[in-house]
């Protein structure tokens, strides 16, 4: 049976054109076969031959099949239109296939309707033209089709309709009425898409009765979805998380269904916990606390930590329940399970911030666990508590002193907190002990550290204390703003966007679609490309909720993190010249051996810690002594000690690659490391037009690979031997054809002084040839020899002191001009 042959043709052959033509002829014949199955298979197979030249052959049979008597043929042909559109969109539009497809929405066969809607929706998504607009006419057509359609088609229709904006409340109510029966469907996808549709229309409905009624109707089906397979439960929970942020009433009475079952997979438990916090209220808090307490003694460490944090978040959220929450936390501390205690201390610190001067009586209990703390965040929290309440803790100085002994080994987070705490202690109890401690800590923090944050903060305190202790009191002991509950942490505009994307991947990742959708077909066509286009580096560890649950602080502790970097209200004006001032004012205080490792301007951040899972990387290509280096700064803001760093560069225009191993020491949490990575050029060349894009991948033993992109500035390739003689310059200028001359205005550049500029440019291997004056303009002639000895002859024209520089160049390689201008602009900035 030839129909069978063609079936396997689509999966096996994607071969040569002559062969194809032959095959097509047989397909063409098949498409007129008397057996509908064979007709359908023929059209399906033809759609799979993804060769542009062939598409013409496809049109006639496709036209016929779209109007075939047999629904199986029509439904196959409908999808084929989408396939064809993918290869040749114009052809589809020219041949009127779209209109035929729209007619098929009213077909009497459910599968044809489903595929027609699916095909139209996909075509619309890939087109900028309004092809499949939902008008009130198509709306009623689709709503009718909804009842006739297959379950999959119902999902397609509901998703297509969710883009429709009803004209008024009445129309919205009508739509909702037609959609509500779908909530009873056994297919989870249908139910969730119906929920999306109803939520969307509810925004327009003004009658509170109708809204309340709808909320009531949506509740049981949503709960029923939680009886599905755990995989589906996970998707539903992520969606419910969004829904309750907008419409908490829907599930306000159903908190019990979110209680964790002992056999739930961990990813379900984590999501349930999150929703329990959101639904916790004064009414149900006792029940909820009982659950949290139970979870806090389970086996899974991540889950236990999250449960403990959840108790703290409830305390912050519900003022009237705070005391009960705290007593549960104290009970948990008494079990003396190390990670429970540490987690509890972290949340208690937040509770103190939320309810100042209320629960300090428990500090004594907290202090009992002092020596078991080994996690930076817990230590930092405890130190914060001691510093903040130093006047009420009799032996605060002894406690802080015990931490001070190991100051050098502590991660930055703890060091910073300890510094601040000791300053607080000193201001509150200016006796001999604290005075010695403060000397010691300031000495450590300024002399023995490489961490600029710590050093700067220490200097600020130092100066404050030495110049005006009263001002220091005002700054350091200033009253802190009260933090608030963060369980609705999504930004309202993001929440709006995510709610519009309920029942899609976007609502599972809690990221807007354009953050992870990349229709990069080119990724496949270039097999040597290690980095698919537009791959978002940070999303490999989605969902964020899961991955940040442990190490990264939730935003409530984010607030207190801000308090960690405390002296925010420090007087702004004297800060810039603080150091110079200090040196002049009191020599005795100033350390003589400035650490040299931190010299040089700050590097631009290329991988923020939010996308690097706590790892922040700043980097820049630099040239030093004729050699290119990648100057990098690693900052570990995660909770893990990171080691085993490796680096990889993607192919790039200049073929930059690393010449040696990446030398990064083990990075404990909170620490930083700098390194100079020697680079070689022309190792790793990518074809195509010149681009300044440098794609980098960094990995370590603890985290997955993270990707970031950097910019290659051409000036790192400017070689030391680029100086030209005047005569040589003129000769070269003349010898190059005029088509090789390119000029560009550099609006961001400015020259204040000719001599200083010449000197500065020479330091970057841009060499001065001659200058002249043209009325009020200065004209400079310069030369550069870039990578592989390509000469650039430069004429720079500007008015001194006014922004905007005209730059004209002549070079044998004009395609490099854009990159050159980019480099020039950065040098003259």
């Amino acid at each position, binding site marked *: 049976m030839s129909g069978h042959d063609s079936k396997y043709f689509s999966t096996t052959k994607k071969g040569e054109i002559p062969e194809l033509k032959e095959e097509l002829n047989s397909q063409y014949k098949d498409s007129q076969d008397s057996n509908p199955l064979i007709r359908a298979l023929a059209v*399906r197979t033809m759609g799979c031959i993804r060769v542009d030249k062939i598409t013409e052959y496809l049109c006639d049979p496709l036209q016929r099949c779209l109007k075939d008597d047999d629904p199986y043929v029509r439904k196959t042909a409908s999808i084929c239109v989408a396939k064809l559109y993918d290869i040749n969109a114009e052809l589809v539009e020219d041949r009127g296939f779209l209109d035929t497809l729209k007619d098929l929405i009213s077909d009497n066969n459910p599968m044809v309707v489903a595929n027609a809607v699916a095909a139209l929706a996909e075509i619309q998504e890939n087109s900028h033209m309004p092809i499949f607009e939902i008008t009130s006419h198509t709306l009623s057509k689709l709503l009718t089709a909804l009842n006739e359609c297959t379950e*999959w088609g119902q999902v397609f229709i509901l998703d297509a309709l969710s883009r429709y904006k009803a004209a008024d409340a009445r129309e919205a109510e009508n739509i909702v009425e037609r959609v509500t029966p779908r909530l009873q469907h056994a297919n989870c996808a249908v139910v969730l898409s119906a929920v999306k549709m109803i939520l969307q229309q509810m925004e327009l409905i003004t009658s509170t009765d109708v809204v309340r009624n709808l909320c009531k109707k949506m509740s*049981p089906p949503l709960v*029923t979805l939680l009886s599905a*397979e755990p995989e589906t439960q996970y*998707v539903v929970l992520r969606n419910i998380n969004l829904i309750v942020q907008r419409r908490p009433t829907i599930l306000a009475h159903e908190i019990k269904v979110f209680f964790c079952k002992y056999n739930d997979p961990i990813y379900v438990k984590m999501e349930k916990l999150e929703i329990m916090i959101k639904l916790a209220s004064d009414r149900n808090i006792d029940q909820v606390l009982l659950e949290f307490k139970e979870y806090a003694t389970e086996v899974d460490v991540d889950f236990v930590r999250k449960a403990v944090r959840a108790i703290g978040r409830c305390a912050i959220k519900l003022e009237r329940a705070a005391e009960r929450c705290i007593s549960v936390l104290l009970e948990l501390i008494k079990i003396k399970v190390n990670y429970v205690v540490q987690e509890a201390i972290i949340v208690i610190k937040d509770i103190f911030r939320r309810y100042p001067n209320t629960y300090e009586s428990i500090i004594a209990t907290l202090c009992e666990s002092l020596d078991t703390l080994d996690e930076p965040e817990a230590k930092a929290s405890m130190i914060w508590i001691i510093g903040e309440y130093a006047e009420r803790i009799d032996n605060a100085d002894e406690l802080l002193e015990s931490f001070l002994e190991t100051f050098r080994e502590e991660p930055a987070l703890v060091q910073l907190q300890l510094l601040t705490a000791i300053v607080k202690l000193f201001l509150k109890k200016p006796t001999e002990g604290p005075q010695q401690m403060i000397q010691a800590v300031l000495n450590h923090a300024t002399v023995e550290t490489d961490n600029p944050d710590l050093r700067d903060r220490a200097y600020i305190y130092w100066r404050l204390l030495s110049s005006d202790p009263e001002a220091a009191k005002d700054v350091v002991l200033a009253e802190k703003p009260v933090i608030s509950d963060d369980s609705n942490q999504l930004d309202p505009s993001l929440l709006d966007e995510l709610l519009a994307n309920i029942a899609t991947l*976007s609502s599972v990742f809690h990221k807007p679609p354009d953050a992870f959708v990349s229709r990069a077909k080119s990724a*496949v066509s270039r097999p040597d490309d290690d980095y698919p286009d537009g791959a978002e580096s940070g999303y490999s560890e989605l969902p964020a909720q899961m991955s940040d649950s442990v190490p990264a602080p939730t935003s409530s502790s984010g607030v207190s993190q801000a308090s960690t970097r405390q002296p925010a209200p420090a007087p702004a004006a004297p800060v810039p010249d603080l150091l110079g001032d200090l040196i002049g004012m009191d020599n005795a205080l100033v350390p003589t051996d400035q650490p040299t490792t931190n010299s040089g301007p700050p590097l631009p951040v290329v991988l923020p810690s939010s996308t690097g899972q706590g790892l922040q990387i700043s980097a820049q290509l630099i040239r030093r002594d004729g050699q290119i280096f990648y100057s990098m700064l690693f900052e570990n803001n995660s909770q893990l000690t990171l080691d085993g760093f490796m680096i990889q560069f993607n192919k790039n225009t200049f073929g930059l690659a690393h010449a040696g191993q990446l030398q990064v020491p083990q990075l404990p949490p909170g620490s930083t490391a700098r390194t100079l990575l020697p680079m070689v050029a022309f190792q790793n060349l990518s074809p195509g037009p010149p681009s300044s894009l440098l794609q980098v991948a960094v990995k370590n033993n603890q985290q997955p690979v993270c990707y970031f992109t950097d910019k290659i500035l051409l000036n790192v390739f400017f070689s030391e031997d680029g100086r030209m003689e005047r005569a040589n310059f003129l000769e070269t200028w003349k010898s190059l054809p005029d088509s090789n001359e390119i000029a560009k205005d550099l609006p961001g550049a400015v020259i204040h002084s000719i001599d200083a500029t010449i000197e500065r440019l020479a330091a970057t291997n841009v060499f001065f040839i001659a200058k002249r004056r043209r009325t009020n303009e200065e004209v400079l002639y310069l030369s550069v020899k870039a990578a592989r000895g390509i000469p650039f002859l430069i004429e720079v024209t500007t008015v001194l002191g006014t922004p905007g520089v005209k730059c004209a160049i002549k070079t044998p390689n004009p395609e490099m001009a854009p990159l050159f201008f980019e480099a020039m602009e950065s040098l003259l900035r």
Partner: protein
Amino acid sequence: MISQFFVLSQRGDNIVFRDYRGEVPKGSAEIFFRKVKFWKGDEQDDAPPVFNVDGVNYIHVKVAGLLFVATTRVNVSPSLVLELLQRIARVTKDYLGVLNEESLRKNFVLVYELLDEVIDFGYPQTTSTEALKSYVFNEPIVVDAARLPPLGPASMFMQGTKRMPGTAVTKSVVANEPGGRKREEIFVDIIEKISVTFSSSGYILTSEIDGTIQMKSYLTGNPEIRLALNEDLSIGRTGASVYDYNSSSGGVVILDDCNFHESVHLDSFDVDRTLTLVPPDGEFAVMNYRMTQEFKPPFRINALIEEAGALKAEVILKIRADFAPTVTANTIAVSMPLPAYTTRVSYELESGAVGQTTDFKESNKKIEWNLKKIVGGSEHTLRAKLTFFQESHGNITREAGPVSMSFTIPMYNASRLQVRYLQIAKKSKSYNPYRWVRYVTQSNSYVARL
């Protein structure tokens, strides 16, 4: 829509791989498996079913120890993909009789033929075994089911009771019997999964029943079927609180919510609680329901842990079966986590205990107690003496438990939902197919706190 579909074995071998759109690179299966296997760096945590690596979205379900995976680049409905993956698994099982690595490998031609009909250009077409029959022509190669562990919800009937024609549910819906004619039969299974949480004082904190009426028809000619449920069945609880146990409901069965298969006609459901349907071939859920109405839990658990001198403690576990003596539960497993500093456990079973085993694994610090069967009305006790390597922190009950229990009880349903009768439209007088209406209750999360 979806770009690729593939099935991986537990070891990560590619059993089935189909690319529908050619927009995701070929190495996706390996990338997926590595990610799932080492989620968060260890092998313990399950990866969430939906995640994104380098712009490719991976969506997967675990069925019968196999990973069914779809990849996509666009913002699809994940629940649609998950549902589709489950359906593919079910259709494949309908066709092959058993779903496992061996049956998939032996039938790969048929499986690829199915996949071509089920999905076109990434869009689900039909997942109904009935509809697929007209387009799929390969015959399944039947794998010997007897030596394989049975799978799927209906497999629970294979244990214990001999009345159940267990092998029937593992036969293919399309393959003919070796003898020639197919046996005319229909299976209706009422499967209930119950979740109960007891407080330390024995009160019921939460309880829930997730039920399914599952049907698998081997009837030729697809006759119409009427299925009658309890006449007084009511749906949707009134009043403010769903968990208001005080509402004395008498003998009435009240469901919180239910949904039906699309083939079900509900015309007379509101009148006399009967469902009319023409069952398509293959296994499908006629009705799913959920109930939080108070019900009598089949087992009462009594657990006690007490310190008995320095570095010692004693655990007493009591299980009482609160159902009729004519019913027998089987494959019961009770487990209780112990304090982390437990080093040794010695067990003491009741005298004359048969078919009971106990275990303690150093690695997970749990009492494990397995009972082959428990007859209704009986009570079983286990005593365990624990040895610790350090003192407890004071409150030993907080460091142990909760006790969890798993079991299967055939011919028992906790909700009291009944199939009053199952009527098959008769083609002729002699037409009298076998009808199997079976009840079974399984534990979902059955937990007693200490």
